[in-house]
């Protein structure tokens, strides 16, 4: 049966109906079983939340300059945090040279503001370049030399050291990782196989093992008269380990570039190198930036492992603070320090994670 239909008047677009308000009762208690589960979980959250607030706020001790300020373990010992923030922030950096540290922190903060404001000038290439150049500049400024007195990395510590290790790792791991990823696709078998062996080897060994090897074994292999301080060895270990991680990320990005792109580049007369530089890499790197931010989050958290091999990172600074004569006392004091640390890492890493989400959404 066919009928012939002809529309006489076209339909104008109308507004979509307003979204209905969220019905909490139906969301939390759709069936009795789920309702019970919801109630249980909510009670659990409420009780543990209340207990935590009791410990962290209500019964907390806020001021004081020794363990005597925090008797008992009913409340958090924030006095420990407020009294020791300086060594946690900068380690044993000489007080008269602290302006160098503040410059680094300020520059880093400005850099992030520039990145986050999404200005036209903050293209991905420039941001990545900044992540490679900034650590170098920081390192030179912090270690000094020339007119500035030299401050050995053994004196750096706390958040400063964590920041520098993270940035230095990033600045070296990214280029090395990119080279490894390209090497893995090389036509030369020796290059290809050495890259594969390195990447797969690093990925199959725990980071802590790599760190111990760097801390204890590497000095044995160095030529006589040539020494590397623990800090540098740790950074090298971090860089090589994370280069292997970055290599896999870059490899994924390179694989995502279709054959058509390379063919088109060939047919407009580009050489293999120009194709790589102008067509393949810009697309591949843009595609993997969110994954690179995830690597950065991992690096930040991994830096806490430095405390195990005796580098004075943020975690290590907190622990040694609790061992200092003034603060020997309840275990609660160190616990407060750990909770504070957790909050710091949570803020930084969650922030970065949000940033990575935003980058992903922009694509």
């Amino acid at each position, binding site marked *: 049966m066919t009928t012939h239909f002809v529309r006489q008047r076209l339909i104008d677009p109308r507004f979509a109906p307003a979204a209905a308000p969220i019905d909490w009762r139906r969301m939390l208690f759709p069936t009795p079983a789920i309702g019970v589960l919801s109630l249980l979980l909510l009670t659990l959250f409420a009780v543990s939340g209340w207990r935590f607030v009791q410990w962290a706020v209500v019964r907390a001790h806020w001021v004081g300059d020794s363990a005597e300020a925090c008797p008992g373990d009913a409340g958090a010992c924030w006095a420990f945090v407020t009294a020791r923030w300086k060594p946690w922030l900068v380690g044993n950096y000489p007080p008269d040279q602290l302006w160098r540290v503040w410059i680094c922190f300020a520059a880093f903060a400005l850099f992030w503001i520039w990145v986050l404001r999404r200005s036209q000038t903050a293209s991905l290439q420039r941001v990545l370049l900044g992540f490679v150049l900034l650590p170098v500049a920081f390192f030179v400024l912090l270690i000094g030399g020339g007119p500035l007195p030299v401050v050995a990395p053994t004196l750096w510590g706390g958040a400063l050291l964590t920041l520098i290790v993270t940035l230095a790792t990033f600045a070296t791991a990214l280029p090395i990782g990119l080279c490894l990823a390209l090497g893995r696709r090389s036509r030369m078998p020796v290059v290809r196989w050495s890259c594969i062996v390195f990447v797969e080897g690093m990925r199959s060994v725990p980071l802590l093992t790599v760190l111990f090897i760097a801390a204890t074994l590497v000095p044995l292999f160095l030529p006589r008269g040539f020494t590397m301080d623990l800090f540098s060895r740790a950074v090298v270990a971090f860089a090589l380990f994370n280069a292997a991680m970055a290599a896999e990320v870059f490899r994924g990005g390179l694989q995502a570039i*279709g054959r*058509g*792109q390379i*063919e*088109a*580049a*060939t*047919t*407009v*007369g*580009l*050489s*293999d190198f*120009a194709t790589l530089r*102008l*067509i393949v890499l*810009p*697309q591949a790197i*843009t595609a993997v930036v969110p994954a690179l931010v995830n690597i950065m989050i991992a690096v930040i958290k991994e830096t806490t492992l430095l405390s195990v091999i005796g580098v004075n990172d943020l975690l290590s600074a907190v622990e040694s603070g609790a061992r200092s004569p003034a603060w020997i006392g309840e275990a609660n004091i160190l616990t407060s320090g750990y909770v504070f640390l957790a909050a710091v890492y949570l803020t930084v890493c969650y922030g970065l994670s949000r940033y990575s989400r935003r980058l992903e959404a922009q694509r």
Partner: protein
Amino acid sequence: MTSDITRDANAAIARMQSINKWYGTFHALRDIDLQIASGERVVICGPSGSGKSTLVRTVNLLEPFQQGRLHVCGVDVGADEITRAARRAVNRRVGMVFQQFNLFPHMTVLQNLIVGPIWGSGVPRNEVHELATHYLQRVGLTDQTHKYPAQLSGGQQQRVAIARALCTRPRLILFDEPTASLDPEMVNEVLQTMESLAAEGMTMMVVTHEMGFARRVADRVIFMDQGQIIETAPPDDFFDRSQSPRLRSFLGQVLSH
């Protein structure tokens, strides 16, 4: 073109001599002998898998071959002499337009056009900009200069791809099913661009199923099947007096709808 001089072997812009190609054990091109004269428009058609795409991709060495000899725009390569240098030399003189456009998505239209001449052939920037502006006007996309490919329709993207190929000043342009992935309403704008190119005397090898285009534009139509050239004729003969039964049944399939 009717003149015999342009068909003269010496004026050939591309010459394929007994070219054979295998994908693994699959014999994709079988004893291909073909000459393209300067200024000639050749349309290649045939069922899918017949080797027509492989044939045009062999002309600019995107696909290597295992036997035979290829002579394109003054570059002469045997099957065992296909090097990167040879491929680059050929690609500086031969342009290509792909079925999937293959524009560079991270570059604007203008950047797509100029990247090849600047970085591939070292043409000075101001000269390239003039070229690009000229060819964008030629394909009617002057107002899209600073847009990204994703902001354009399929037809516009393919016209940009044509302009990009033209910007390298090719002596021969290969078209590999340029309208096959376009919505029907966009096929015409691309075909018209190609027709006006043909009218200007550009040498073209076109793989397409657009039989109307073949009839209007081609000097010669080639029918391929199973990796071989089955029939070659001027369009009138090709469509109205086809000889081989294979071509007749193919045309019956293609032209019936």
